[in-house]
């Protein structure tokens, strides 16, 4: 069933990571990207891997879950590795020389270094979506983007759109299922033929889906008006986001890690070519 698809990747739990304020988690995730790109040598990278391992342990998430998020980027990892091996040249003799291809030990080292970096980046940022409900993420985004009011970006409207989109994904999935069955019942062939033929077979599914989406949008707008919706102005929230001491401690830890990584860079210099 199409409607079985999960929205977001939230993995329910009650770990420290789950309980952090979503605004802080979003901030820390951005900071984590900085953390991943800071190290210039193996000691720094090792520290990042250890740090990620620590966060992972705190999240109580199964490691299998991380594998699920890394799998789609494996191609990217392989691709950059090959490029690095081919393009990074070293001072000594190449390990392998064949036609125009020369592979140096330095190239392999760089490839491994960058691969670990990418994997850490993906694993670290997917922890955010694994431990935060889409609703909490939306609220956090609304809060963090609210200063953009100055440049006429309406954070509330963006968040509202995202909430409605999340709300309607399963509904529209179900509808797609229904329309597909209806068209199949009338003899539509969705599973055979070449690419073009299959794309063309999608048209009788997409058109009714669009039409009904617009009808839904119209009705939803009316229902929202009935419930006195007037935009973000003068609106309050039932659930207020609240930062606790753990949020500030987490921030302090991240800042300490950033400082430590800069220290390691100064201490050991760069080992990257």
């Amino acid at each position, binding site marked *: 069933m199409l409607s079985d698809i999960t*929205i977001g990747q939230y993995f329910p739990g009650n770990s420290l990571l789950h309980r952090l304020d979503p605004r802080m988690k979003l901030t820390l995730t951005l900071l984590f990207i900085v953390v991943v790109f800071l190290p210039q040598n193996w000691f720094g990278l090792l520290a990042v891997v250890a740090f990620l391992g620590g966060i992972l342990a705190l999240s109580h998430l199964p490691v299998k879950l991380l594998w699920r998020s890394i799998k789609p980027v494996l191609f990217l990892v392989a691709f950059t590795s090959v490029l690095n091996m081919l393009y990074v040249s070293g001072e000594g003799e190449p390990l392998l020389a064949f036609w125009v291809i020369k592979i140096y030990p330095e190239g392999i080292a760089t490839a491994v270094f960058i691969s670990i970096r990418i994997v850490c980046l993906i694993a670290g940022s997917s922890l955010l979506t694994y431990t935060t409900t889409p609703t909490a993420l939306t609220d956090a985004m609304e809060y963090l983007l609210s200063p953009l009011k100055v440049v006429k970006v309406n954070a509330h409207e963006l968040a509202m759109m995202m909430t409605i989109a999340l*709300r309607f994904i399963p509904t529209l999935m179900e509808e797609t299922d229904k329309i597909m069955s209806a068209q199949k019942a009338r003899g539509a062939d969705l599973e055979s033929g070449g690419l073009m033929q299959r794309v063309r077979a999608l048209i009788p599914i997409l058109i009714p889906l669009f039409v009904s989406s617009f009808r839904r949008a119209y009705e939803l707008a009316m229902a929202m008006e*009935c*419930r*006195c919706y*007037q935009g973000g102005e003068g*609106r*309050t929230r039932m659930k207020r986001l609240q930062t606790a001491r753990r949020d500030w401690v987490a921030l302090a830890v991240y800042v300490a890690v950033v400082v430590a990584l800069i220290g390691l860079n100064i201490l050991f210099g760069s080992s990257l070519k």
Partner: protein
Amino acid sequence: MPMLKAEDVRFQYEYENEAPQIVLRGINLTVEKGSFVALLGHNGCGKSTLAKHFNALLLPTGGRVLVEGMDTAAEANTYPVRRLVGMVLQNPDNQLVSTIVEEDVAFGPENLGLPPAEIRQRVDEALAAVDMTAYKDHSPHKLSGGQKQRVAIAGVIAMHPDCILLDEPTAMLDPKGRQEVLDTICRLNREQGMTVVLITHYMEEAALADRVVVMEGGMVLEDGTPRQVFAQVDKLRALGLDVPQPTALCAALRQHGIDLPADLLTPEECAAALVQRIQDRKA
């Protein structure tokens, strides 16, 4: 002061190159506080259009609509009117906004700018009133149609309206869901004194109301208690409307010369009257 008052309300859709489509042709209707009114009529008779006038979704092109004395045509009254008169639509899927049940119920009170503690309290009360407290953390798309519709009702009553308009709220539900929603509506009306205006195609639902209004061609045709209105079986049938099954049965038996009252609504009343007839004949 009546809850809702329509004074010679006229409404038409204007088109650029075509003649205007006249939907309401002078409606006069007063709905008292605490009453339960069923609005009947076949498709296109203007009943939904009339309902939309009662919460300022549409403004009359002639006449006026008063909600607790407030004229809906005044722009300053739009939101006060919508707070007093909640509306539940036919398709429950298209009126839920949020991905979590309790947050959806909170949507209305949040729009009113209430303090968070009060919203919390109202949401809990509203969910309890529709018997959906157990599902407050659920995602709406995993609920049954009847449950979704009850959440939609909770979302309306969390705004503490005085009146609730329901536009065919059971049309897309299975029999069990219908019964759940109807029980909820009746309870709100009897226990909390909520004024209810129910648009429906089901005559059994209309029989639950204490007043039935029949519309045809943008006008009010019949207005009275369910007994008075449904007693006119032939007239309703001529309009393409049905009557409750017990009433229809009695009418059919009367045609065969069996003397039965014309204003029976429930199966129990009907059965009692039939038993009475049989005993009379034996005696």
